[in-house]
């Protein structure tokens, strides 16, 4: 399958500041999470993809169209939701969405019909007839999302789509992204600081730090530990079971008073744990394979980046 986004040694300098430093990526279609600390170059990367800033060096393609040369074709096929609080002053919500649909090339009447349909999809009801300047932050986020999808683009680039939303709206927003990705076959590139959002909807994760790509992999692969680890939660104190397993030369870490983390490459261990628990006089409440937390992966990647630079 052709790459959704292919970048080769993309470098972007703002004067003496290097925002992107030789970014090379090849991303397959799907839902991609773009993570990175503040100033990592995430927004610059998204703007490069949209042709909003020119790269200093490097080349790339988005949906098979060349960066810098086929800007209009890229913009016609990408729905961009900026992080900034941007709006068109003086217009009502539905007028803004219709206006942007027309700028994307939809005929006037069709743009109005589609604008109403997208506002329904995004949960903007009677407020659509109000001036956008009176909208709350949450409403503006939903409006920006409607603007991004109104021309039915195959790729969505969302910059912090859930920031400023209450938990219910955040879940609804993620639900919309899920629907577009799973049912409509859209690819989505999400830049966010909210790691649970990435875990909830993304297939692939890109971690950027100091303008360089530190990690690119599928979320599933990333969250799998290097060696198999099992989490065991017990009824009562975990100490006796830990001692019993140590006698079997297993590596055991007591994570809390009732939880143990056991490294064991041997799958047969799982069968014997029940027996050891009975011998130790404890009951097992849960026995599950451990996963790496995305937060830990993120922090490790950023730290590695800092060490490499220093």
């Amino acid at each position: 399958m052709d790459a959704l986004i292919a970048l080769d040694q993309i470098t972007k300098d703002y004067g003496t500041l290097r925002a992107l430093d030789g970014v090379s990526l090849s991303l397959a279609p799907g839902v991609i999470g773009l993570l990175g600390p503040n100033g990592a170059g995430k927004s610059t990367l998204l703007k490069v993809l949209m042709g909003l800033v020119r790269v200093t060096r490097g080349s790339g393609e988005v949906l098979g169209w060349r960066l810098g040369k086929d800007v209009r074709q890229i913009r016609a096929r990408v729905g961009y939701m900026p992080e900034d609080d941007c709006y068109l002053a003086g217009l009502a919500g539905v007028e803004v969405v219709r206006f942007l649909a027309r700028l994307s090339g939809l005929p006037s009447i069709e743009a109005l019909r589609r604008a109403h349909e997208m506002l329904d999809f995004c949960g903007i009801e009677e407020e659509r007839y109000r001036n956008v300047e009176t909208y709350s932050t949450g409403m503006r986020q939903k409006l920006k999302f409607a603007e991004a999808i109104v021309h039915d683009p195959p790729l969505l680039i969302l910059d912090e789509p859930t920031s400023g939303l209450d938990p219910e709206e955040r879940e609804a927003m993620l639900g919309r992204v899920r629907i577009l990705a799973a049912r409509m076959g859209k690819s989505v590139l999400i830049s966010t600081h909210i790691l649970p959002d990435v875990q909830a909807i993304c297939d692939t994760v890109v971690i950027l730090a100091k303008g360089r790509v530190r990690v690119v992999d599928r979320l599933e692969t990333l969250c799998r530990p290097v060696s198999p680890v099992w989490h065991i939660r017990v009824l009562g104190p975990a100490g006796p079971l830990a001692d019993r397993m140590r006698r079997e030369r297993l590596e055991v870490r007591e994570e809390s008073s009732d939880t143990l983390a056991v490294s064991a490459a041997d799958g047969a261990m799982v069968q014997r744990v029940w027996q050891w628990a009975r011998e130790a006089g404890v009951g097992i409440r849960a026995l599950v394979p451990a996963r790496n937390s995305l937060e830990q992966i993120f922090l490790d990647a950023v730290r590695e980046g800092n060490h490499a630079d220093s």
Partner: protein
Amino acid sequence: MPIHDLGYRPWQGRLVPQIGRFWVIAQTGMRLAWRNAWLRRALFLSWLPVVYIATLLLVYEQIQAHTSMRDTLVPWIRDIPITGDRHQVWACLLWVFFRYPQGILMLLVVGQVAPALVAQDVRSKAFLLYFARPLGRFEYVLGKMSVVWAYLLLITAAPGLALYVLGVLLSPDWHVVCSTWDLPLRILGASAVLMVPTAALALAISSLTSETRYATFGWFAIWAVGWATYAMLRANLPNSADAHRWDLVSLYHTLGAVEYWVFGLKYELVEVLPLPARVGILPSPAQVQIWPAAIELTAVTLVSLAILFRRVSSPMRV
């Protein structure tokens, strides 16, 4: 939830051609500007001078046809054109029409329309919305410029052409068209002289700030300062032959000088047309500095466009 909520549906229609995208911006801008009641009043006001100038044309043509009316009318109407070449008289009246009522109304109309056009987009960071679409900076600027041009057309070319048609209809002889056929073209030329540099300048000022009121102030200040400077410099040379050399310090007077050239006015007209000459507003060809004035307007337009394009690009740089 709306009762007709259909969820997300793909769209597979036919896109409109790229070339018309600027018009979407223009249409929306015009609609937003039209909400301003003062603008609507100014537009209404801009058609009133047509009545006055048309009356002068009517009187002139009647005098040409019936010389007996001359002695009757002259004592009653001070501004009446008495003699002279028809083309020159018509051109001069049209020049006066463009120079004074429409020139002043141009200031007011552009001052109502243009300041918000780019300043509001700077303030609301709307560039990110515009340029995330298949839209170039040229189309954006053309769209915004078209808003100003459309309203300026309504106060320059439209009433100017209406005035010409009215003049022809009120003339006793249809042959008047033969001697004035080029005036509609000159009207369009004079409208372009008023529209292009002023729209570029107004949008450049608008792009320099995120506050509409500062842009409005800047727009009027440029004209007021130019005018005041011109008046002070001119006061020191009351009857000098080169009094009009200070035209270049005032954009308003520079526009007037170029329009004078566009209408092809001649020196002799001062003798035959008392209206402008009496109040000392009609320069002679020797005094009109057409090339410096034309160069100044071109420079104003180019510098304004350079500022505008740079300002439109700058929010994307960070």
